[in-house]
C-alpha cells in the first residue's frame, strides 16, 4: 500500500523546498540585478530591488577596460584541458580499481582523497618555486597541469563509483562472447558508463572554471582566466559593486548556461534493464 501524504504536509514541504532553493539562488540573482544598476543604486541603503534605472553601462565599461574574450578563452582552455587530461589518466585507473581490485585498492582510493584535505596554501611556495624554475608561471599549460592534479582524485573517485555500478557479469558475458579487452571497453563498458562520464566531465569543468586559488596565484596577465578577470574589479582603487557584479555575471554566465542545458541529460542517467 502506498503511503498517503496529506495535502497539508505536501504544502509545507513545497514551501520549505522553494525557500531553500531561493536562498541558494539569491546571491546569484542579487549579483545579476546589481550588474544592471548604477554605482549609486548598487550601494543604496535600504537596497532597491527592481525599481531602479536599468543600465548596461557597467557591461560597456568592463568591456572597455579589459579583454573579456581573452580571459574567457583562457578559462575554456584551462578547464577543458585539465578535464580532458584528467579523464585520460583517470579512466584506466578507475577501470583497474573497479574491475581488478587488489588488496590495497581501498587504501589507494582513501590516500588519493586525503590529498584533498591538505590546505592548498601549504604547498603554494614549493609549487610557485617549481613553476618559476620550469618557466610555467603565467602559462596555460602550467595551469592545466596543476588543475588536473588537483581534480584528479575527484575524477578517479567519481568514475570508480560509476564503473562499480556496472554489473561485472555483463563484462564477463562480453568476454564469453569473444570480446577482447579493447572491444569490451569500447562496445560494452563505455556506452554503459557514458552518463557517469558526462557528469564527471561537467563537474570537473565547473570545478576548474571556478578554481580561484591557483589561477590567481600562478598567473599574471597572459594566462589569467575569468577568476582573475573578476578579481581585477575588486581593486584597491575602491569597490565598484556594479562593475564587479557585471564582471562576475559575465564570468559565471557560460558555466551557468552549460549547467542549465546539461542537467536534464545528466540526471536522467541510464536505466539498467539487463540485470535484475
Amino acid at each position: 500500500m502506498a503511503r498517503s501524504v496529506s495535502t497539508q504536509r505536501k504544502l509545507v514541504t513545497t514551501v520549505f523546498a522553494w525557500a531553500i532553493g531561493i536562498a541558494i539562488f539569491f546571491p546569484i540573482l542579487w549579483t545579476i540585478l546589481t550588474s544592471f544598476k548604477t554605482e549609486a543604486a548598487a550601494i543604496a541603503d535600504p537596497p532597491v530591488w527592481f525599481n531602479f534605472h536599468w543600465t548596461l553601462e557597467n557591461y560597456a565599461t568592463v568591456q572597455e577596460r579589459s579583454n573579456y574574450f581573452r580571459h574567457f578563452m583562457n578559462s575554456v582552455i584551462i578547464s577543458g584541458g585539465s578535464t580532458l587530461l584528467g579523464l585520460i589518466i583517470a579512466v584506466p585507473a578507475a577501470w583497474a580499481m573497479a574491475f581488478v581490485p587488489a588488496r590495497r585498492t581501498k587504501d589507494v582510493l582513501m590516500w588519493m582523497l586525503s590529498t584533498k584535505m591538505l590546505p592548498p596554501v601549504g604547498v603554494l611556495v614549493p609549487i610557485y618555486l617549481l613553476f618559476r624554475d620550469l618557466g610555467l608561471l603565467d602559462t596555460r599549460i602550467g595551469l592545466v597541469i596543476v588543475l588536473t592534479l588537483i581534480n584528479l582524485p575527484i575524477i578517479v573517485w567519481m568514475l570508480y563509483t560509476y564503473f562499480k555500478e556496472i554489473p561485472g557479469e555483463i563484462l564477463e558475458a562480453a568476454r564469453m562472447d569473444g570480446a577482447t579487452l579493447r572491444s569490451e571497453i569500447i562496445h560494452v563498458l563505455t556506452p554503459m558508463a557514458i552518463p557517469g562520464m558526462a557528469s564527471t566531465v561537467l563537474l570537473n569543468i565547473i570545478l576548474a572554471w571556478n578554481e580561484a586559488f591557483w589561477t590567481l596565484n600562478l598567473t599574471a596577465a597572459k594566462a589569467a582566466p575569468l577568476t582573475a578577470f573578476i578579481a581585477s574589479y575588486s581593486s584597491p582603487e575602491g569597490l565598484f559593486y556594479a562593475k564587479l557584479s557585471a564582471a562576475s555575471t559575465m564570468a559565471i554566465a557560460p558555466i551557468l548556461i552549460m549547467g542549465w542545458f546539461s542537467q536534464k541529460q545528466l540526471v536522467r542517467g541510464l536505466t539498467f534493464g539487463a540485470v535484475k
Partner: protein
Amino acid sequence: MGRITLDKVRKTFGDVEVIPPLDLTIEDGEFVVFVGPSGCGKSTLLRLIAGLEDVTSGQIRIDRQDATDLPPAKRGLAMVFQSYALYPHMSVRKNIAFPMKMAGLPQDEQDRRIEAAAKALNLTDYLDRKPGQLSGGQRQRVAIGRAIVREPAAFLFDEPLSNLDAALRVGMRLEISELHKRLATTMIYVTHDQVEAMTMADKIVVLRAGHIEQVGSPLELYNRPRNVFVAGFIGSPKMNLISGAEAEKHGAVTIGIRPEHLGISTESGLWKGVIGVSEHLGSDTFFHVTVEGLGEPLTVRASGEVSLKYGDIVWLTPNEVNLHRFNAEGLRIA
C-alpha cells in the same frame, strides 16, 4: 564437438581451498547438472570451465586440447548467466548479434542466424526492443539466443532460472531440455534446485564443499545414493534418515527410507505414530508423522487425497526392498 575433461583441477582463493583436486569428464552432447547446496563450489567450477576464473593447478581440456590457460573468448563456450547479463544499451537484435560481430561473421550470415534463433525462441516481435522493455522470461530467452548463435562447443548455464517465478521456471526448464534434444550440444547446468537437476540431467554431479559426492544418472542417484549426503539431497520431499536402535536392527548406523516407500495404515504396521502437519497437493498428500523413538518426524507420501487429520494414530511400514543402509562413515552398505 564438446568433450570437457577436468584433470586434478584445484582452486584456492587466498588460503581457502574452494575446490580440492577434482577429476571429471563430460562427454560430448551430454546434459550435465552440477547440483549442491549454496557455497558447494558448483558455480566456481563452472567459472573455471568458462575461463572466468583461473585454476590454481590442474588441467582443463576441451576436445582434447589444453584450454587451461586460454582466455574465455578462445574456449568456444557460451554462457547464460543468472542475471542474464544482457547489454542494456543494445537492442535484442544487437545483443544476439554481439558474439557474431566479435567473431567477424559476415552480415548476411549474422542476420540468418538471428532470424533462426528469434524464431526458435519466440523473440521475432521483440528484436528491436531494449532488454529493459522485456519480461524476465523474455530476457532469459535473449540470453539463450545470444548463446545459441555462436554454435558453441558447449553451453554453460549458471542458475539461469533462479530469477524467474515458479510457473515460468517450469516452462523454461522444458524449453532448455527441448533445446538440448534439438541441438545435441554439450550443456553444463548449475543449480541448487534438485528438481531441475532430476528433470533435466543426463548426468548429475552432486557437490559438497568442492568435493564430488556422486556422479550418475538421476535414477542412479535416486535408487542408489552413495552416501547419506546424496541420499538426503536428492529426492523431494527428502528421504527420511533414521539412526539408533531401529537402524541397528538392519545392521547399519543410519537407514534411509523415502516418503513414497513408507506404507501408511490406520490398522496395523511396524511403527506406531501420530500425524502432525499434513500437506495436501491434490495428487499427493504428505504427512509428517512422529514415531516415538525415531527422532525427527517422518515424511510419508500417500497417493491422492487421504483423509487423516492432525493427531490421528497411524501405522507405518517401510518397504524393505527400498531401504537404504549406511555405515558409520555415512557410506552406503551394499
